[in-house]
């Protein structure tokens, strides 16, 4: 390993440009002749459109054009799609209601786009958008998913009777019922998982450029997966043919899932650029982001967990209603099903599991994956239940968990997943030691002396990440394969460009991917460039989400490097008249093992391109690519422990310490991994304590700005104590598992378990605001 290689805390290559203001985000892009867009959005949560009159708007200063859904329809632009087919338990396919990029007949949530205004400046576009007269005929509204399923409620889409999208199940209902009937103890709980807004700090933006000269389209966009954006825009929305569409996702200021999907604005701006003949840029403001970025979570569940006399779990029964909002977003259907129910076994050996999931349309913004996507919902449900069960059974939370841990691998759960490797007890022990669990009683007593209620809570999570393999996701309904691709171009002088289909929006790929190359070839990290986010440069890709960049994206790079090394060895062996199998690559040179013969890397590269003296039949050049499709998911797991103090006078919760002990397999850059955990924990604490998207009964969004939606700030959080143990993943060449989501998955239950421990009342829903905690603390359990 070189100093910059795998396992080293290499400072990030990308930081300099961000720190000096030279980052290039979509809203920073300008092209000649560019104009600005504003969208006309529905102020009603549900209404039919009787007419649209843009006459006044068209006459306003600076306005180029106003376009609405009728023109979009006339141009054959398709509906937005959901790319993951789920079937109900009766065999019927999910009920997909039409989602027009610009609504032409009906609007279904506040913020639904109706028309686009293109003007000389943002201000002029917004002024004119205000002047577009839309004749709405309001319809009755439903925002609550449980209510939406009842008879006589407002109906959102004709396809979906009672707003039910699908009624899906997984597992063995009969076995679970038998176990419940025979149980020595059953723990029952109702679980709410609050609706969140992802809130990356960079608002979404897009710049659509149609070049009439070449009949070619370019789309700059804030995307986590530009190739998928190109595929969907060409294959489903008919905006442009795939070979004539270049999608560029430049620097992207955070995604957390919300930038996986294709939104109406990207489609409409690209189309509008062709209609108007000018490049069209749209940048969301924060209120638009709250109104239109896909939200996350929003589950209502009931759970029953059965135990035998020895405190072993015998069965788990889960019934979940998931609110998917007004339309089905791109991945929305897989989140509460295959990303959720398949993780309900957690770290535990549970013989029988049955999950029933109903998804529902409501007059709210579409809900889709948000950091963790399904796995936080599963972990929250399971770990709140474990904690509750431990209290009911009179056991310590650690003891109950230990009794039920999976201990031998591979482990087949009753809900599809096959865990490949893990050591759950090691994480639990590490977290308890770091949190000084045994000293808690004394700390609690000391806090009581100050009139404070102190509590401690844990959660043990598992997640399936490295989203792939293609055949598996295909059999579960995915519309695409989830491999990844990489290309390694060795330049004539030996410097290296890596083109990866992964996309970095804060994860530091420009550093970690370069570390892998540096490690393999012994080259300085500055001689390696990582190129991503541009469909014209990168051969193919599926983007970044579900902690797949390391396990899938870097594995593809490792495979491409295998090919580069093999060819480089052939060339070097020829140059040194040695046997190819004797060549080793070390410290930027190709050496004949056991001799002092070597050629520097750059000289081999030059030889590949001068091609004056290559082995007979060998192609000139040195550029190799690979696709990688893993055999299984990876299974990071860990234990989180949180200690809180609640002020009984005010209900205010202070997080005293937060400990994370994760098993991420092998680690490329510990500094970056720790940063990912910190960020995830902050989002999890945000969900548990502060954040909630709220609508009123008429479907107006009450939390449409940072004044109303409580984002965690520095003072809301402690410093975190993080550590890792590293059971290598046996399913990929690097042994990595993925770390991006863990913090957001493991932390909410640990925190709520700690607060309920402190106040002695288990009836607490997220976010545990001071008001709610105060009220709960008054009543006890």
């Amino acid at each position: 390993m070189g100093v910059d290689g795998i396992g080293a805390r290499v400072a990030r290559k990308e930081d300099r440009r961000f720190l000096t203001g030279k980052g290039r985000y979509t809203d920073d892009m300008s092209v000649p002749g560019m104009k600005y867009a504003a969208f006309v959005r529905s102020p009603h949560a549900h209404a039919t459109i009787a007419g649209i009159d843009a006459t006044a708007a068209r006459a306003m200063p600076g306005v180029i054009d106003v376009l609405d859904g009728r023109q979009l329809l006339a141009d054959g632009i398709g509906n937005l799609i959901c790319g993951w087919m789920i079937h109900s338990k009766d065999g019927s396919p999910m009920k997909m209601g039409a989602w027009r990029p610009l609504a032409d007949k009906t609007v279904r949530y506040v913020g639904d786009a109706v028309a686009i205004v293109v003007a000389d400046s943002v201000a002029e576009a917004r002024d004119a958008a205000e002047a577009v007269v839309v004749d709405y005929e309001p319809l009755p509204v439903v925002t609550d998913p449980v209510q939406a399923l009842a008879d006589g409620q407002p109906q959102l889409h004709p396809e979906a009777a009672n707003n039910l999208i699908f009624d899906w199940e997984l597992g063995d209902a009969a076995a679970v019922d038998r176990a419940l009937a025979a149980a020595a103890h059953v723990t029952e709980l109702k679980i709410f998982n609050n609706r969140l807004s992802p809130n990356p700090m960079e608002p979404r933006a897009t710049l659509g450029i149609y070049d009439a000269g070449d009949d070619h389209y370019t789309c700059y966009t804030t995307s986590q997966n530009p190739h998928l954006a190109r595929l969907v825009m060409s294959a489903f929305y008919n905006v442009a043919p795939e070979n004539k569409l270049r999608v560029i996702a430049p620097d992207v200021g955070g995604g957390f899932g919300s930038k996986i999907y294709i939104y109406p604005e990207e489609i409409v701006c690209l189309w509008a650029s062709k209609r108007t003949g000018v490049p069209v840029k749209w940048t969301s403001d924060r209120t638009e982001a709250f109104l239109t970025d896909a939200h996350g979570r929003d589950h209502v569940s009931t759970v029953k967990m059965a135990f035998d006399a020895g405190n072993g779990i015998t069965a788990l029964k889960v019934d979940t209603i998931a609110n998917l909002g007004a339309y089905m977003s791109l991945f929305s259907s897989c989140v509460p099903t295959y990303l959720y129910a398949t993780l309900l076994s957690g770290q535990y050996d549970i013989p029988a599991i049955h999950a029933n999931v109903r998804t529902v349309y409501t007059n709210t913004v579409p809900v889709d994956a948000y950091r963790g996507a399904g796995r936080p919902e599963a972990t929250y449900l399971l770990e709140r239940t474990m904690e509750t069960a431990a209290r009911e059974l009179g056991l310590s939370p650690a003891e109950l968990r230990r009794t039920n841990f999976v201990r031998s691998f591979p482990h087949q759960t009753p809900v599809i997943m096959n865990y490949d490797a893990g050591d759950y007890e090691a994480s639990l022990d590490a977290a308890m030691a770091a949190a000084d669990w045994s000293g808690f009683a004394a700390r609690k007593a000391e806090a009581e002396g100050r009139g404070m209620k102190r509590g401690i809570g844990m959660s043990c999570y598992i997640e399936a990440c490295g989203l792939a393999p293609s055949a598996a996701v295909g059999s579960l309904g995915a519309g695409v394969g989830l491999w990844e691709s990489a290309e390694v171009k060795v330049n004539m002088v030996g410097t290296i460009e890596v083109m990866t289909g992964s996309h970095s929006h804060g994860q530091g790929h420009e550093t970690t991917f370069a570390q892998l190359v540096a490690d393999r070839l012994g080259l300085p990290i500055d001689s390696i460039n990582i190129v991503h986010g541009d469909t014209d440069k990168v051969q193919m890709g599926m983007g970044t989400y579900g902690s797949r960049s390391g396990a899938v994206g870097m594995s593809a790079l490792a495979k491409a490097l295998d090919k580069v090394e093999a060819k480089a060895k052939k060339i070097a062996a020829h140059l040194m008249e040695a046997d190819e199998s004797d060549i080793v690559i070390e410290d930027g040179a190709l050496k004949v093992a056991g001799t002092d013969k070597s050629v520097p890397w750059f000289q081999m590269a030059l030889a590949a391109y001068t091609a004056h003296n290559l082995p007979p039949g060998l192609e000139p050049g040195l550029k190799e690519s690979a696709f990688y499709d893993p055999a299984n998911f990876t299974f990071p797991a860990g234990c989180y422990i949180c200690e809180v103090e609640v002020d009984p006078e005010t209900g205010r919760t202070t997080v005293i310490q937060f400990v994370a002990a994760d098993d991420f397999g092998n680690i490329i850059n510990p500094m970056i991994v720790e940063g990912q955990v910190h960020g995830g924990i902050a989002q999890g604490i945000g969900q548990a304590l502060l954040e909630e998207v709220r609508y009123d009964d008429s479907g107006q969004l009450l939390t449409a700005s940072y004044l109303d939606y409580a984002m965690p700030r520095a003072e809301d959080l402690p410093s975190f104590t993080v550590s890792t143990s590293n059971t290598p993943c046996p399913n990929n060449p690097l042994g990595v598992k993925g770390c991006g989501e863990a913090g957001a998955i493991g932390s909410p239950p640990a925190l709520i378990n700690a607060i309920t421990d402190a106040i002695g009342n288990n009836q607490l829903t997220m976010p545990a605001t001071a008001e709610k905690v105060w009220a709960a603390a008054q009543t006890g359990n």
Partner: protein
Amino acid sequence: MAKITMTVNGRQVSGVCDDRTLLVHFIRENLGLTGTHVGCDTSQCGACVVHMDGQSVKSCSILAAQAAGSAITTIEGLAQNGELHPVQAAFKAHHGLQCGFCTPGMVMTAVDMIRRHGSALDEAMVRAELEGNICRCTGYHNIVKAILAAAHEMGGVRQAAE
């Protein structure tokens, strides 16, 4: 429409803009200095923080016309002669950024915080002073570490110079 002149990063600049144009848009659109970001519309996020006559301000909260005649420093003006400012260097060393979007505002806030408190800063003070800046990526842990480290180093440098 108004013609506005100000000093930005040590250079005199002028531009013509609407009376309603905010300083942040003047900086980004008229001057092409896109390091200063817009993250919200309610002056809550701090992505837009610049220095105006030596003090940090949210450039989304004042009109460009109000800033006429003042001396503005943006993130682009912080590094000198290709050398990162100690606060920038500390953010890099302590991994105080991920997506980088909040970073310019964070750094400008930090520089002003350190100017006012120097090495007297402690963790609680840094967290309290970051009240006006939101970061969604880092959990603040490493930002706090970076600011404390920079305060220490800059305080140390100052003491050594005295």
